[in-house]
């Protein structure tokens, strides 16, 4: 914890007392009797499963709840001395900044400079102080080169930084972030978290960050608040949080903590650095043992790309997004397709599915392909599941994804995971020979905003699809998820394949595209907590 940054004794950055809230027409409250206080300059991580109330608490702290969403509210919320229930989001904008999950919907101007200037202009600041504030926040977030650009030419990571700059330009005492890294690749995600930590330390701004991928940000946090069913289930230090989650809700645990827990080492580490220090102190030698990667058995190719070049045009600027890709995927394989934002993952899948035409080379999917794009809701256009999937082909597809019981349901009433499986069934329908799947099932970035239990369900579904004989390829930024489901990882960089091999090998061979366990142990082939624990138990026993 940064003692200088946290100015104890000053008015709290956020004080919530007995807060209860229910959205309009909601059957049960989203928040129930929440009482928390965040000191100025504190960096607090808000953990919890999906629908536990994290986003609602953030919205209450910036005034969107109840002023924008309506509903019934009780209790008190004070932000830097301002009553958030009495004051609207406009008044609160001076003391609190808010950054939501989807950067696309957080920009309202055409150019980056205008977007960052807007809150100051609304406040009535004069042009000279506005220009200085914009320049300073742009320098702090390393985006001065973006100021003259239009927002529709920015990448997701750049857009998220611009949204953060617009939230910070008024120099608020508190900034709220709702899963800001969920759409970012590991590199951009790590950069954003450490940028927040730096601003927290240098500017003294308090940070309340809601995240699912806790391994990304636990080490940066001073404190963790865990929510469950709209109530605070835990409030304490990151170290204590790991001990609590291990006993109360293991789905909230981090891979490094699970590694230590399985290996019987205490205390549980909050990050890679602490884990390495703990292992060094115990003199557990790592680096000697490597897990042998199993060679994949050759089978029929279900995707065959040869010398594949694809060009996309953005404005006046055509760009080769895929540059001579050679790739073959086989039946029954579970493959993670990884790489930075813009590396060409989605383009490769769309080209395989026939949505894009190559400018050179060819790609074939001999057994057919079912592609689920990034937004499964795009597939759901009717108000009854049975109307989306009529006939025997539809029923067979619903059976494959385990939704045969939901024929009469409205897709909007299904849970997020069920909607995703329904969309997959729509893509599969009619492509199956009886219960046999098409050659390739491709899923594009399906884990955004998912908690670990839903990811586990997806891992099981992928294993089932591969077990039925389909090759399954998943484009993802989530290295921990890739380590769970994939047997092979293809890493794209700027439109070319820069690594292709067994998952254990690829995910332990770098830093950004490596699991937390791989970064702790730095052992070839060791990427999951279970593998790491086996190595640690062996090393510990061997060393005496």
């Amino acid at each position, binding site marked *: 914890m940064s003692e200088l940054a946290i100015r104890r004794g000053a008015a709290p950055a956020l004080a919530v007392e007995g807060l209860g809230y229910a959205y309009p027409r909601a059957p049960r409250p989203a928040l129930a009797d929440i009482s928390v206080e965040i000191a100025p300059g504190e960096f607090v991580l808000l953990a919890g499963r999906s629908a536990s109330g994290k986003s609602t608490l953030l919205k209450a702290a910036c005034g969107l709840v109840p002023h924008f969403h309506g509903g019934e509210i009780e209790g008190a919320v004070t932000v830097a001395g301002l009553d958030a229930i009495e004051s*609207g989001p406009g008044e609160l904008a001076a003391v609190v900044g808010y950054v939501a999950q989807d950067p696309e919907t957080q*920009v309202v101007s055409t*150019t980056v400079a205008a977007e960052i200037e807007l809150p100051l202009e*609304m406040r*009535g600041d004069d042009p000279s102080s506005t220009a200085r504030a914009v320049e300073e926040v742009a320098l702090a977030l390393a985006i001065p080169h973006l100021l003259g650009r239009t927002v529709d030419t920015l990448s997701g990571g750049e857009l998220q930084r611009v949204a953060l700059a617009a939230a910070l330009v008024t120099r608020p005492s508190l900034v709220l972030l709702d899963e800001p890294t969920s759409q970012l690749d590991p590199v951009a995600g790590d950069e954003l978290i450490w940028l927040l930590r730096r601003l927290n330390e240098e500017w003294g701004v308090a940070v309340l960050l809601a995240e699912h991928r806790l391994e990304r940000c636990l080490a940066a946090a001073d404190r963790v608040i865990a929510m469950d069913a709209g109530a605070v289930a835990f409030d304490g230090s990151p170290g204590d949080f790991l001990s609590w989650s291990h006993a109360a809700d293991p789905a909230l645990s981090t891979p490094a903590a699970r590694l230590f827990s399985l290996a019987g080492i205490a205390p549980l580490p909050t990050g890679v650095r602490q884990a390495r220090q703990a292992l060094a102190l115990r003199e557990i030698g790592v680096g000697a043992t490597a897990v042998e990667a199993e060679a994949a058995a050759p089978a029929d190719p279900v995707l065959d790309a040869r010398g594949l070049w694809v060009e996309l045009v953005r404005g006046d600027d055509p760009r080769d997004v895929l540059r001579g890709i050679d790739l073959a995927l086989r039946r029954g394989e579970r493959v993670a397709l990884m790489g930075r934002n813009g590396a060409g993952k989605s383009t490769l899948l769309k080209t395989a599915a026939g*949505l894009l035409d190559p400018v050179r080379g060819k790609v074939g999917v001999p057994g057919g392909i079912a592609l689920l794009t990034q937004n499964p809701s795009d597939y759901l256009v009717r108000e009854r599941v049975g109307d989306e999937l009529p006939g025997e*082909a539809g029923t067979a597809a619903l059976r494959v994804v385990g939704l045969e019981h939901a024929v009469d349901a409205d897709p909007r009433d299904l849970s997020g995971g069920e909607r995703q499986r329904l969309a997959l069934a729509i893509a599969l329908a009619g492509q199956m020979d009886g219960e046999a799947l098409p050659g390739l099932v491709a899923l594009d970035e399906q884990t955004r905003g998912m908690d670990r239990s839903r990811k586990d369900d997806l891992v099981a579904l992928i294993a089932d699809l591969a077990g039925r004989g389909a090759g399954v390829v998943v484009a993802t930024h989530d290295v921990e998820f890739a380590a769970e489901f994939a047997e092979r990882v293809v890493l794209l960089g700027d439109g070319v394949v820069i690594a292709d091999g067994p998952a254990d090998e690829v995910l332990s061979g770098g830093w950004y595209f490596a699991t937390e366990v791989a970064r702790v142990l730095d052992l070839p082939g060791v990427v999951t907590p279970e593998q790491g624990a086996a190595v640690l138990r062996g090393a510990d026993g061997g060393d005496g």
Partner: protein
Amino acid sequence: MRSPFAYTPRPGPLQAASPAAAVAYLGALAAVAFLYSSPLVLGAVGVAVALAGYLAGAGSAVRAATRLGLAIALPIVVVNALVVNRGETVLARLGDWPLLGQVDVTAEALADGAIFGLRAVVVMIAFAVYSACVDPDRVLRALRPIAGRSALTATLVSRLVPVAAADAARLRDAARLRGPGAAEAGRAPLARRLLAGSLDRAVDVAATLELRGYSLESRRAMHSSSVGGQTRRSWRQRRSRHDRRFYLAGALVLCAAIAAKVLGADDFHAYPTIHLGLGPATVALSVLLVLSGFAPYRRKPRRRRV
């Protein structure tokens, strides 16, 4: 894919000028297109706006607007030729048509239609150059004090239109990816889905505007206008050193066009026979108009010899 008409920041004088100066300049050229029927003058205005667009770096917008304008102009020429039977130079007698009766295609009707078409092309190019070169944020900022609600609506629309276009492209892709055993997506369900998505997006954008303090500004504006009757705004539009150039060019173009019109420069009529006068006033105005297209010219910085 980005629209060629979308605003692109560039370091040119037209982009740096205030919206009012840019509108004065391009608006004056468009006004001349409405004032005159002489093909020479209209052609000169067309050359001027295209030149202005190319010099401002908006060549793709000029080309796209020309294509679009020609696609609109061609039907105008054809329809005018079929519907209007005036004119003495009959090029073709097409007999009796239902509703239209006797259809004679005359050179005069074709010329008259071509003038309408040319005017449409010129105005579209002028608008395309405006769209590609004038920062909409600055336009909205200028509008806010005088028409807050309209500016808010324009802000929402200007943000939501490209987002809705991207949503529509995604929905089309998803529709193409439905398996052959799934029900066809259909236009009506897709449109409903797009509308529902747009409403969700609108709510998100409105929430962002709230967080940026938009409602605060409208309240402050109301308060300040009600107290003392004067709204003192600390925010001022930034002026550009190029503003004077565009105001001057616009004023010169408009004054010259009006003066030349009074002097009989618009010496063209299509009926009963085509007459095109090329008097000194017409020629001088046309030359002036073409020269006005150089207003966005940007001198390269001189290198100082050491």
